[in-house]
């Protein structure tokens, strides 16, 4: 009985989740819609780091640097040249991706913890450079203010509701694309590299190129998150892109489960909603967070929603019903 029920539930799950997210801002109000927006930003950041860390297995603790490049690209180009925010969305992605390519190209051969240390340094250098106000562009510690709201000409997004839907539409499109990548030769190549680099080479995979690709795509998605963040706050400043942000992104992927999209959503929920729920004892929330992380690593080291690997997709299940070979 349960066996026949499960596929129905599985099929109903996605529309249900979408309906839940669409209904959320109408059953809550004001501040909680903004919480929903930042939840969406953390999902995007989690998804972006998940490409690098979850899929390709590369330790990147400087991901906030790419996020910052996206946010500052949007902020500077919008305030200086008045280029509309939504046009800057792909521009920020390209800028962050290009930056990632340039900085990771010389370090991509580093393994494990060595790469981790260098990416920490990279993230910190970005933050310090922003504080030092190079060419008078970044506004130093005060950042850049006076950013416009996203506009489609006739429709300007300036309400919490508008931002909420903007970010979640972007999340939806990103997830759609990432799932397709996951189930392609590119996603498999990343997973092979994560499992065993030497074996991946022996199977004919250009390890260096695919590692770079993971960084570039991950950074581009972080750049998109940066664009949305800048357009929501209307101001960007260096302290929003600290090492702590990189740590949060890392936690999102670890809490959820490496390489798992639903895991990232759960991880982002834990990281962004948790502080809101426990605001009443704000002084202890980092302690609680830390203890929760340690407990989780002990009890569920694979994450809360680990990726099903090697298991069958729904379509394969159907195929198996028809073709009874083997």
């Amino acid at each position, binding site marked *: 009985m349960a066996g026949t029920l499960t596929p129905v539930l599985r099929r109903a799950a996605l529309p249900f989740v979408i309906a839940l997210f669409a209904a959320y801002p109408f059953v809550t109000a004001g501040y909680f819609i903004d919480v929903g927006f930042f939840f969406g930003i953390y999902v995007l950041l989690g998804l972006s780091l998940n490409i690098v860390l979850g899929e390709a297995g590369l330790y990147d603790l400087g991901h906030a640097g790419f996020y910052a490049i996206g946010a500052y690209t949007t902020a500077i180009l919008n305030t200086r040249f008045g280029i509309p925010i939504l046009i800057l969305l792909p521009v920020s992605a390209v800028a962050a991706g290009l930056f990632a390519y340039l900085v990771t190209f010389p370090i991509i051969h580093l393994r494990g913890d060595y790469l981790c240390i260098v990416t920490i340094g990279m993230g910190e250098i970005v933050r310090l450079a922003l504080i030092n106000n190079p060419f008078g562009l970044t506004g130093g510690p005060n950042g850049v203010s006076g950013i416009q709201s996203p506009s489609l000409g006739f429709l300007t997004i300036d309400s919490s509701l508008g931002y909420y839907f903007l970010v979640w539409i972007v999340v939806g499109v990103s997830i759609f694309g990432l799932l397709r990548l996951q189930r392609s030769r590119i996603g498999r190549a990343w997973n092979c590299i994560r499992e065993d680099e030497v074996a991946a080479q022996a199977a*004919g995979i250009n390890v260096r190129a695919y590692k770079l690709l993971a960084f570039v795509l991950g950074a581009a998605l972080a750049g998109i998150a940066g664009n949305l963040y800048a357009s929501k706050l209307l101001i960007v400043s260096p302290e929003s892109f600290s090492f702590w942000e990189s740590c949060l992104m890392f936690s999102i992927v670890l809490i959820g489960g490496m390489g798992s999209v639903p895991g990232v959503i759960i991880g982002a929920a834990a990281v962004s909603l948790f502080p809101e729920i426990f605001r009443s004892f704000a002084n202890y929330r980092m302690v609680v967070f830390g203890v929760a992380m340690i407990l989780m690593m002990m009890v569920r080291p694979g994450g809360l929603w680990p990726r099903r690997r090697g298991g069958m997709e729904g379509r394969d299940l159907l195929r198996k019903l028809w073709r009874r070979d083997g």
Partner: protein
Amino acid sequence: MGSLQARDSAAEDTFTRDGAIVLETAGLTKSFGGLAAVDSLDMRVHRGEIASLIGPNGAGKTTVFNVVTGIYRPERGSVFFEGKEITGRPPHRIVEKGIARTFQNLRLFSNMSCLENVMAGRHCRTFSGVAASLFRTKSQRNEEREIRERAEERLRLVGLWEFRDELARNIPYGRQRMLEIARALATSPRLLVLDEPSSGLNPRETEDLMEFIRAIIRDEQLTVLLIEHDMNVVMGISDWVTVMDGGEKISEGPPAHIYHDPKVIEAYLGVRS
């Protein structure tokens, strides 16, 4: 006995080997911290044969494999594959050229399914990029189907069809060896390089493996180069044997010749006092 030895040594340079040269190393040298693991090695593998590389522990056999497959870069000397120099090319390029390998200590993608492991081998024969994968273009979908069908066919060939959805780490050791061979075969190689394929296998499995290797050579116009410790295997299957000791080639020839070569016996058993 004396006459047999005399005949063998006299014939040393006149053994005939059929077929074009598939793999050739010339003066190949690779050292680690001043110690020459491989020293001026000249070796040839001809088309359609099973060539073996043998020698005591530490003779440098695996180093030869790692240089040939691009994992190490040699200090001196060259590697030619089908007449073209491939020395120092990156490993994935060498796989593209048509040399596939397995490892002495299995290297599988443990947390991926057996099918996915073999599908990885098709990577170098397929081309779809990020955009094609995002938009699921017609050519990308056809290519994915081709990857899948080809991988399924390879899995059947090595008899692992029933394990296709199992994680690679969950299947028995002997099966894991076959899975690694299936992954190598999925790259459509012309030269298959096997590093101690029978290690960890029981005699029955070893026999099956040898039978399998003979069959694929016949059916797929393959050439095989293998490192092997099991002398029964080497003598039973090889067309040509190269013996190394201390990084140098000390003998080569058909198995019957190697079997009686005093230098080989000395390398394995020491000098009779």
